[in-house]
């Protein structure tokens, strides 16, 4: 997919393209939007995007396959194949839009919910499931796809991203780094420190905050008195709120922020205003703390439906495309299902593997003791 070449390059300062009459009504202030919930293209004075039909279909395909994978993972948890799953349902546009804005040499520091970004990076979806099944704590090589391990502790990875970006700048490279986090994480000290470090060192990092309105049971109002994107101002770099359910706007704004980083203009905060349609994880019960009507209101802003409307109404895709994609989704789901079920438990001795790169006497001692203990059962069995 090559949206990089055609996506927004620079903010356009001309306001001539904006028609107030055509601009859709939005309850959220200063929300960058390029595709309305009704599936209509809208202009924005600062951000624009121009994609081919193929590229639009590509974004749609990414979102559909990600949602299908996510649904399959939820089902696998219900079937007892996974211990836990953190669904991204509703956040596909934020993740695919930002993920497709990246170049191969850019580097991603995700939370534990960035399944769509992982998809864009080329990480095999089955690799994401190991930690949720309980066979590893991540396990993929971050440098294969420039996609770091999932980080469970909230906000810690924003500092890793900042340090990595400081290294990129030291190397004189024009790559950028993107750190994903959520509205809950915005309260963490590490996020504040990441903002400080990235600002004073002018690090090429984009802070991509998916404000999905809920940190488990706590609404965003419990995290901040100001809209989150405004936090950036206090640190001296720009903050932008984008419609997180609008894949085109997420792509355009992230692209712009990445280009700023590449040009040596430092960090940007992007707040993708979206909604967590499902539970926090499969262990959560959102009926305890939020109303169905809120979810229903967001359902009308679904990121996939609005792009489907555009694809259909502007004839970017035909029925054959949608049918083929449905088939592809089922194939993906089947592959994931079979891969998870075939995923073996690790050897007990793996407990002692990779604790240290250069070895450690105590680990060696305990490994030998545990091996002897295990072997004693084998002897009894004979």
């Amino acid at each position: 997919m090559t949206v990089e070449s055609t996506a927004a390059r620079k903010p356009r300062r001309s306001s001539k393209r904006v028609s107030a009459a055509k601009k859709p009504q939005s309850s959220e202030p200063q929300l960058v939007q390029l595709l309305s919930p009704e599936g209509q293209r809208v202009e924005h004075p600062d951000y624009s995007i121009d994609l081919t039909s193929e590229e639009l279909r590509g974004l749609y395909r990414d979102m559909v396959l990600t949602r299908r994978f996510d649904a399959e993972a939820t089902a696998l948890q219900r079937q007892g194949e996974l211990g836990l799953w953190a669904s991204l349902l509703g956040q596909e546009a934020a993740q695919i839009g930002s993920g497709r804005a990246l170049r191969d040499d850019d580097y991603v520091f995700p939370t534990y919910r960035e399944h769509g970004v992982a998809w864009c990076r080329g990480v095999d979806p089955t690799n994401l499931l190991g930690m949720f099944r309980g066979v590893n704590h991540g396990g993929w090589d971050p440098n294969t796809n420039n996609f770091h391990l999932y980080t469970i502790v909230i906000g810690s990875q924003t500092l890793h991203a900042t340090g990595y970006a400081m290294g990129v700048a030291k190397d004189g490279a024009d790559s950028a780094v993107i750190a994903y986090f959520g509205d809950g994480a915005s309260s963490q000290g590490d996020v504040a420190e990441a903002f400080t470090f990235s600002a004073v060192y002018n690090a090429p990092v984009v802070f991509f905050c998916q404000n999905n309105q809920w940190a488990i049971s706590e609404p965003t109002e419990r995290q901040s008195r100001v809209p989150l994107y405004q936090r950036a101002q206090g640190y001296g770099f720009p903050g932008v709120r984008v419609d997180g359910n609008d894949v085109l706007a997420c792509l355009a704004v992230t692209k712009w922020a990445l280009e700023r980083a590449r040009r040596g203009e430092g960090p940007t905060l992007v707040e993708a205003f979206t909604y967590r349609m499902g539970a926090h994880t499969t262990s959560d019960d959102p009926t305890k703390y939020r109303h169905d009507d809120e979810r229903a209101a967001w359902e009308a802003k679904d990121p996939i439906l609005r792009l489907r409307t555009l694809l259909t109404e502007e004839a970017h895709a035909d029925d054959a495309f949608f049918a083929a994609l449905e088939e592809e989704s089922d194939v993906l789901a089947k592959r994931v299902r079979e891969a998870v079920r075939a995923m073996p438990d690790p050897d007990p001795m793996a407990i002692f593997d990779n604790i240290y790169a250069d070895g450690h006497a105590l680990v060696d001692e305990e490994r030998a003791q545990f091996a002897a203990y295990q072997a004693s059962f084998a002897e009894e069995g004979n």
Partner: protein
Amino acid sequence: MAAQKLPLAKALNESLRKALETDPKVLIMGEDVGKLGGVFRVTDGLQKDFGEDRVIDTPLAESGIIGTAIGLALRGYRPVAEIQFDGFVFPAYDQIVTQLAKMHARALGKIKLPVVIRIPYGGGIGAVEHHSESPEALFAHVAGLKVVSPSNSSDAYWMLQQAIQSDDPVIFFEPKRRYWDKSEVDTEAIPDPLHIARVVRDGSDLTLAAYGPMVKVCTEAAAAAAEEGKSIEVLDLRSMSPIDFDAIQTSVEKTGRLVVVHEAPVFYGSGAEIAARITERCFYHLESPVLRVGGFHSPYPPARLEEEYLPGLDRVLDAVDRSLAY
């Protein structure tokens, strides 16, 4: 520079200089480490010679220092981060324990985290609160970290070289009250491995095991005991994770008695771990229980009381006498 007498802080400075010269990926970062050269001048002159890009004054945020050091390590750098004082490390504790220590294992060994965290530690300098603590056990308890502490200038020079060369995260505790003590450093010597203990005084009646600032106290105690006809062996453990239990075992099998000395509180301290393991390894060689001398289960006291709190010559000799009385 071949062999010469240097203060411990200067030996560390020379070691950092050598690392910066040898490996372009080595970075120094911390609060006041640049222009000022560190509050103890351990990094004195390094920014001037290697530039602000490699000797980095950071914002005053310890979690940020370690978190960004992790990111720099992931990018291929070898950061040597300074935490200004022992009691200031805790804002970074989460990044160290939760992120740094576990990342190599979480990636199934596919990434390495060569981060050194230098921490001046221990008391005896008449400082205000949070400037005299010995938190080494809190790090040694964590799998994925290595924890070392030199007691003299030569070890300061070489152990820091080795820590920087290590592909594992190393917490490098510097005995701040020994910063100004001079001893011989041979920069062309072949150093001992990083994690082995060393016999610094031979003896046959009892083993004193210590590290960092307490090695000097123990060698002085051994000299005092010798005047009373007691032959004390002194072990400089040098590494708290891993601990060289083989060396302690060898010594205890000879002497039959062991006293472990550290500034850190005795309760759950490294002495407790050593006592348990040596009791297991040397049960039939021990003539008396393993004893410990260290800090109390109290906050580190105000400076006017630290002489009483810190294990000194008399408290070590008292433990020696109690052990020999069994």
